[in-house]
């Protein structure tokens, strides 16, 4: 097996950084979205459900292109960010946004499954014992959906590691800047004689995913025993 090149190490580092940042940024929003969809009734709920799930069904390339339109120099958000001196497109931040958007529905769905299995009367009991909505969320709902939050996080993290279509459009494929593992593999495969290098990155990819899954199983088992 050929050894890894310095740019491969960059790609690995960047992949982990992007996936982790996307998860950390998305988690509070994911929990909030899952809570609202599980426990609250509001106008336009069905519309929000569709919007949240859209990235799950749309091709990632389409998501990438829509993000490009939104965040590009002519996009309204892009213009706003540029006037504040923030450049997003073709930076690692764009890769984070792409991963976050594509992985968000997986995160919300997993957390929701956990939240919806919580007995409503436990929540009612907490409220009648003097806990506010937010207090109930922190002391009853979140601890009881910890396993599903963990499952959603693992799923989203793994999905972010594999994100390709949206990232290549909105962040490009710049070695050392926005080139994550899948993009590097794509580069190797499309250049002559690059297969062995592609294979070693594939093995690294498998290794990281296996570690994530084992970590998930271990933590999940621990949480199950605790309850």
């Amino acid at each position: 097996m050929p050894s890894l090149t310095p740019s491969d190490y960059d790609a690995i580092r960047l992949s982990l950084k992007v996936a982790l940042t996307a998860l950390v940024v998305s988690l509070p929003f994911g929990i909030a979205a899952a809570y609202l969809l599980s426990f609250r009734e509001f106008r336009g709920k069905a519309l929000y459900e569709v919007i949240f799930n859209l990235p799950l069904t749309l091709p990632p390339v389409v998501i990438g292109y829509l993000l490009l339109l939104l965040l590009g120099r002519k996009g309204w958000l892009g213009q706003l960010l540029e006037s504040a001196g923030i450049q997003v497109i073709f930076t690692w931040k764009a890769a984070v946004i792409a991963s976050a958007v594509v992985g968000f529905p997986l995160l919300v769905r997993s957390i929701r499954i956990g939240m919806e299995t919580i007995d409503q009367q436990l929540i009612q009991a907490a409220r009648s014992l003097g806990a506010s909505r937010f207090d109930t969320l922190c002391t009853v709902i979140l601890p009881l959906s910890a396993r599903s939050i963990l499952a959603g996080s693992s799923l989203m993290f793994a999905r972010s590691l594999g994100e390709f279509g949206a990232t290549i459009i909105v962040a490009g494929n710049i070695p050392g800047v926005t080139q994550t593992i899948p993009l590097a593999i794509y580069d190797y495969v499309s250049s002559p004689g690059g297969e062995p290098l592609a294979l070693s990155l594939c093995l690294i990819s498998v290794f990281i995913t296996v570690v994530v899954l084992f970590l998930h199983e271990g933590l999940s088992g621990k949480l199950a025993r605790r309850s």
Partner: protein
Amino acid sequence: MELTMKVEKRLGAFSLHADLAISGERVGIFGTSGSGKSTLVTLLAGLQHPDRGEIVLDGECLYSSSKRIDVSPQRRRIAVVFQQPCLFPHLSVKNNLLYGARRCKPEHRKIDYHHLIEVLGLGDLLIRGVNNLSGGEKQRVALGRAVLANPRLLLMDEPLSALDDRLRFQIIPYLKSVSEQFGIPYLFISHSLVEMRLMAEQVLVVAGGKVVEQTDAEELARSRMGISPVGYINLLRLANPRRVGHLYAYPWGDGEFVLSAGNDQPEALFELSSKDIILFKKHPEATSARNLLKCTVLSTFGSGSRVGIVLSCGEGRLVAEVVEPAIDELGLTAGSEVYAAIKASAFRRMG
């Protein structure tokens, strides 16, 4: 506790129109399942919103659609004990107990944790996990948790329904004693007439989403005698048993009851149906029934096609039932003397 509720709530095909005003410390809400009892509870606790109306508890308006008042559940200080214990599975027994106490304002704190543990006999449960408790133990913890929240009113929504008979009657003394010892009034919701009589003084009868009757527990039991397949249930708290062969003799009224369901406990609660009491005008020569008591008729009351006969035997009171023709044949009027025959096996021990 003084409660007035005038609320409307529509839930699919069911609609609740409750209009009630009641004051008392131990109030029951009686009705069959689907009558709207639990909806009433959730509206009062603020866990659901009425479509319109007003709820006033002890002079404080908790909800008013016209004045746009809606006090949140956590500020109502109405603790609920549900049919299921609803203990938080991720917390220890102690943290479950203290969940409400920790959220209670200092000025409302009046219940001592250690005293409550003692009253409810929870000491041994504290070190055990919530999931390692029996159904009755869980319900005791749930009750303790509700009381420790220092509520101004306890709502008990069928708290005994999920328990078997033995446990049910073991829990009842706890339910009553916490209310008495800590001075917390309660609303007790149940479809069981026996539970109503053991727990409540005044009773609101709910049917079809409306309060149809406001009465006391004894009156309710008498009025239901005619339609109940088990008749009127005499609840007898008997003490100091004496063994008589395979049977037990308990002092009662002027004499004693001999029964087969006794045990060696110093005190026990028994039920005896009005249907299991046979009345004789004169002392029969011989009878297989082990109990033959000389009684005086105190009063009679009609209930459906049957007539209830209230008998007195010293301090003891019993309700027997007969059909109309028997009244004339035996000449049963207030003051007349009769002999009541009861089989030893007719008594059923509760709990």
